[in-house]
């Protein structure tokens, strides 16, 4: 079989949270009389795990077991504003809001525990559902007892709210794109290597391996991080070699309306995936986390394009890199146009070749 293997790499970055900010998330937490914790936030769980991650942040911040936390994002009557689950903001921005609300709850628990124990709240800490005197852990009161005291003795509701809003970054100079504030709260980074096998007679390309590196800031839940990265890898593979709403773009002919005619990746398209996580903490995210869900399908397509070049010596720069595009490129044997110090690829795709004088891409000589 005329099969060729190749390797390619890519390195990318991505802004965590909404570009230019200005996107609020809010949360409120109340504590039941037995110390169990109810979290209300408006963050949809689209499979990304908002319910899990935000519950973990609350459990950690207050100092109670994870299974004491009930998380309710079910409706706009009880949950406060959250701009939504997009732009890798559900952990990074909304998670910060619940962290802030949990801090307030913790303060209230310590205040009441301080009264019960007759110790200054600043000398107390909460560990595994118990309020302990720092350095003298035999002096303690269980959080359920604190909650009961709040309810029945002091007539108080232990509650806390939190909100996260970074001010909107305005473009102050539309000529240069200069902004008045950082348009991002944190930038995540990733790198990816792809290995491919290409049949030069049919153009069929199989991605055989993806090695990926992600700086996630801090993995609040490493398993969920893996889930995002692996899911993103396969979507990136789809972008790279399979998926296209308009197979004859720009024509709208032959749009696939079924799973048989729109090629979403399936089990048998799956390459071997190796992933390396780095934790360089962010300054703004909860516990140093960065969002990595969005960027998780960005690095594979360029790595695959470079791997295909390595395998068969042609650059396919229209996605997806289909068997047909590989065969056409192999037939065209296109070399870049060399003119002085200029090396020009893909000139047939340029606006300069297609537009009838409407727009041009001019490069300084």
């Amino acid at each position, binding site marked *: 079989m005329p099969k060729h293997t190749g390797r390619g790499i890519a390195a990318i970055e991505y802004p965590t949270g909404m570009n230019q900010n200005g996107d609020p998330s809010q949360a409120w937490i109340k504590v039941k009389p037995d110390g169990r914790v109810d979290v209300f936030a408006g963050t949809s769980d689209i499979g990304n795990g908002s319910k899990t991650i935000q519950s973990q942040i609350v459990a950690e911040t207050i100092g109670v077991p994870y299974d004491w936390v009930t998380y309710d994002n079910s409706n706009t009557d009880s949950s406060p504003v959250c701009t939504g689950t997009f732009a890798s903001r559900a952990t990074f921005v909304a998670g910060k809001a619940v962290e802030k609300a949990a801090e307030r709850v913790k303060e209230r628990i310590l205040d009441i525990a301080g009264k019960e124990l007759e110790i200054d709240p600043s000398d107390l800490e909460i560990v595994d559902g118990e309020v302990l005197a720092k350095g003298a852990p035999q002096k303690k009161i269980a959080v359920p007892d604190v909650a009961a005291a709040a309810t029945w003795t002091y007539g108080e509701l232990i509650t806390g709210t939190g909100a996260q809003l970074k001010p909107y970054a305005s473009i102050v100079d539309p000529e240069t794109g200069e902004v008045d504030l950082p348009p991002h709260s944190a930038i995540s980074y990733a790198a990816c290597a792809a290995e491919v096998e290409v049949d030069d007679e049919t153009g069929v390309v199989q991605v055989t391996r993806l090695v990926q590196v992600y700086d996630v800031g801090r993995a609040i839940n490493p398993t969920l991080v893996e889930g995002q990265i692996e899911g993103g890898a396969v979507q990136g593979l789809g972008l790279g070699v399979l998926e296209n709403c308009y197979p004859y773009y720009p024509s709208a002919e032959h749009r696939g309306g079924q799973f048989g005619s729109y090629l979403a990746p399936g*089990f048998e398209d799956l390459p071997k995936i190796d992933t*390396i996580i780095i934790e360089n903490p962010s300054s703004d995210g909860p516990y140093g986390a960065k969002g990595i869900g969005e960027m998780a399908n960005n690095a594979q397509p360029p790595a695959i394009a470079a791997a295909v070049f390595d395998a068969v010596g042609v650059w396919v720069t229209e996605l997806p890199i289909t068997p047909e595009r590989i065969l056409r490129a192999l037939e065209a044997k296109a070399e870049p146009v060399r003119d002085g110090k200029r090396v020009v690829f893909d000139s047939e795709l340029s606006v300069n070749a297609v537009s009838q004088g409407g727009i041009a891409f001019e490069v300084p000589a």
Partner: protein
Amino acid sequence: MKLTVNGIAHDVVSAPLATLLDVLREDLGITSPKAGCEQGGCGACTVLVDGEPQRACLTPAASLEGLEVTTVEGLGAPESLSPLQQAFTHHYAAQCGFCTSGMMLAAEGYLKRGGTDDREAIQEALAGHVCRCTGYVKIIDAVAAAARGDSFDLTVTAPSAGMTNLGGV
């Protein structure tokens, strides 16, 4: 007609060519099989018919007289999860969860017919099922673990093979 679902016989009166999916969801209120495409393309509606996985959206309910239909409710309840349900939980094989019922029943069928933990065999057996969230890795991990007869600690989840954490660098 009589339709037996998870061991319970139901009298079903519906349009003559109603799909099993419609009958389960709309007539019997069993909503775990999902209308993901109603074209047989995604597998979200798969149920077991006499132990073999089958797309409910492609199946005229009328053809199932005398046969046993199993949905994911028939695998196990929260307090009595089947080994496969435990495997899916421990290996984090469900993210949004919409494909999960069909996926698990396809996997259950695979295990029932003697499927092993061979990853390629699992991929082949589940090939008709689309999951857009997980990238399939952890689903294969879960089915392989169930095939091996692993026991599962449901208070934690398992890392993926091929995962390295370098910490801060």
